């Protein structure tokens, strides 16, 4: 058990920013993002306890954690639209940085909110490919979808984000 604890502690420190950023893009506000990110690690910890040493050794940590995060979001928002109330995002922590930093943060939170408003299938694809910088093949693997589907979803998602609604498919 000691070994799993060490491994988990390192995993948290190494991947916390990535998992949080993904969660932020998926949920659109920092409060929900923290919940999703925490839940992701919690599930990861419980899963590690049941894995054999070989399985742990062969684990592709990044892809694995993101797959869990995607599932956490899927389970959470099933039937619930992301809240539109917090358009300006974030209240969980008002670290009073320089003004430029605050501006940047606001813009990013706003973008995150807009991403979070995308239909789930576009959102997952856009977040993993553009925010998370995974290749199409990696995204396809993480989502369990064919590469062509992923490409199409990324493309349509970006189009929606650009405010170009012309060929929006009904969802």
């Amino acid at each position, binding site marked *: 058990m000691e070994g799993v*604890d060490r491994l*988990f*502690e390192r995993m*948290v*420190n190494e991947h*916390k*920013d*990535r*998992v*949080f*950023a*993904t969660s*932020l*893009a998926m949920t659109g506000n*920092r409060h929900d993002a*923290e919940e999703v*990110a*925490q839940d992701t*690690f*919690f599930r990861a*910890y419980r899963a590690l306890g049941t894995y054999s040493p070989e399985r742990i050794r062969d684990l592709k940590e990044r892809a694995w954690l993101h797959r869990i995060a995607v599932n956490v979001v899927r389970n959470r928002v099933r039937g619930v639209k992301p809240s539109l109330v917090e358009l300006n995002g974030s209240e*969980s*922590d008002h*670290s009073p940085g320089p003004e430029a930093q605050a501006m940047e943060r606001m*813009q*990013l939170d706003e*973008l*995150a909110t807009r*991403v979070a408003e995308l239909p789930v299938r576009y959102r997952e694809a*856009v977040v993993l490919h*553009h*925010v*998370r*910088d995974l290749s199409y093949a990696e995204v396809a693997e993480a989502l369990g979808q064919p590469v062509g589907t992923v490409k199409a979803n990324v493309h349509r998602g*970006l189009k929606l*984000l*650009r405010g170009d609604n012309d060929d929006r498919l009904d969802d």
Partner: protein
Amino acid sequence: MIDLTTDLKRLGAVKAPPGFAERVLAQVGMADSYARFETVLGDVYVAWNRLGVSAAARSASAAEFEEWFGKDVGRPLQAASPPADLGKKIQDELNGKRRMRFDLRGLTPFEQAVLRKTRQIPRGEVRPYGWVAREIGRPAAVRAVGSALAHNPIPYFIPCHRVVRTDGQIGNYGGGGPEAKKAILTLEGVRLNRLQEMAKAGYRYQGVRTTKIFCYPTCYTGRHALEKNIVWLHDEATARAAGFRPCKVCRPAVVA
């Protein structure tokens, strides 16, 4: 939005908020949280995690507590607001109700056994070190029991102050020295002067003539006997010779 994909990349570089890793580790029991509580013993810092209470100390400041915790327990620690029922549990525990769960993971099996056994000593009573040793099946390990209790990470709640020397000396105390030990025992209703006088005169047990049972002097079952019915006894052999049997509650000797 001039370049959407660049902005999306910047979104990917967002950092997790401060304290996030500690909160995650705390959730799986790998980091502990702590807060200060006002109790009958004064201010006590108490640390806890998912498994239960993990440490307690009457430190002078939060910084002092954090430093001690780092050395003694060694897990990450963060100040936090306590779960709703912890304050009540702390009060109850100090009033003699056993409601707390503990996290003793960092200790050896022997140390854990000593602390678990010690926790069974009721409020208002004391037992010798040798009793703990015998009860956990290691009758020769009396000194080891002493050092296990000296390193008790959760004093007050795991009542190591209720373990005393048979010669009537109060014995050392990690939770603030012999004086603190006396003060806490007195607060709990132990008649220390009487106990110490008897111990110095070489008496270890008290028997009750009417029931023919002998007990440790603070045992609850013997406490309500009339003074005229109480006999003081030097040791087990004398007691048995006089027709007394050991009490089944405080177990001053192996019950035949």
